[in-house]
């Protein structure tokens, strides 16, 4: 985790000095390319793995359940923050 943190922060640092330069735009393209290749390879390792291919429905259901948890939690926190921090002032003003 420290390696990831270090690499990303040093990237931010390097990027800060490269801002406005062509290299910075090149980074965005390199990211897309790397993601395309890596996800293609993930696709391949899924395709050749019968254990995953035969269980895609189960894996999909598990994914949906996890997403329901993630979305409910974040929607409730958004609702609370909006209600107490964004609309509280307006009600004070109207009083």
């Amino acid at each position, binding site marked *: 985790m420290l*390696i990831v943190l270090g*690499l990303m922060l040093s*990237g931010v640092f390097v990027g800060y000095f490269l801002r406005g330069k062509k290299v910075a735009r090149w980074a*965005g393209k390199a990211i897309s390319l790397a993601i395309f290749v890596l996800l293609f390879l993930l*696709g391949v390792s*899924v*395709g050749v793995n019968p254990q*995953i291919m035969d269980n895609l429905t189960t894996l999909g259901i598990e*994914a949906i359940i996890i997403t329901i948890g993630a979305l409910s*939690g974040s929607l409730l926190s958004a609702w609370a923050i909006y209600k107490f921090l964004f609309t509280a002032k307006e009600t004070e003003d109207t009083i």
Partner: protein
Amino acid sequence: MKSSIIIISFFILGVLLGRFDLLPAILQNNDFSIYALYVLMFLVGISIGSDEKAIRAIRNQNLKIFLIPLGTIVGTLLGVYLISFLLKNRSATDCLAIGSGFGYYSLSSLFITEYKGAEMGVIALISNIIRELFTLLFAPLLVVWFGKLAPISAGGATTADTTLPIITKFSGKEFVVIAITHGILVDFTVPFLVVFFCKI
């Protein structure tokens, strides 16, 4: 939206080629190199650091704006933790690693594949794609039911790019800066939280 479709097409192309045995053996026995991910992280850092608009947006905010990404992160993790008890095959930390993608499906599924294998990588990919799609499709309803911050929180790490147009439309223009700041900050936490939950 266009780039999401391209990314998913690459994944599906890989699945089909792998499934029907259309690839040379070297590719089939591939092992995702952690080093490729390290390079990717460095590049992501560069793209954030060199983004003048992003840095200016964050610098000009008051403290309140940081509460929204914090709420998204805490809310997501709590929700995932509670629902993980329904999934008997998966540990709470596995579920939390998947939830920590916050809709950033490309990066999070690659990290999870590296640490937990392709099966978990697939769940992460599907789960985080659903999160993005749900936000795109239901943003208007979310605003009505949960207030104007709801599409931002639901969009997670995607609110600085793919879901920004729809947020602008349904939450309003005054939420654009909030959405961008939110997207950048949540984006930034994805690799750390994912790796953290994969390792504990």
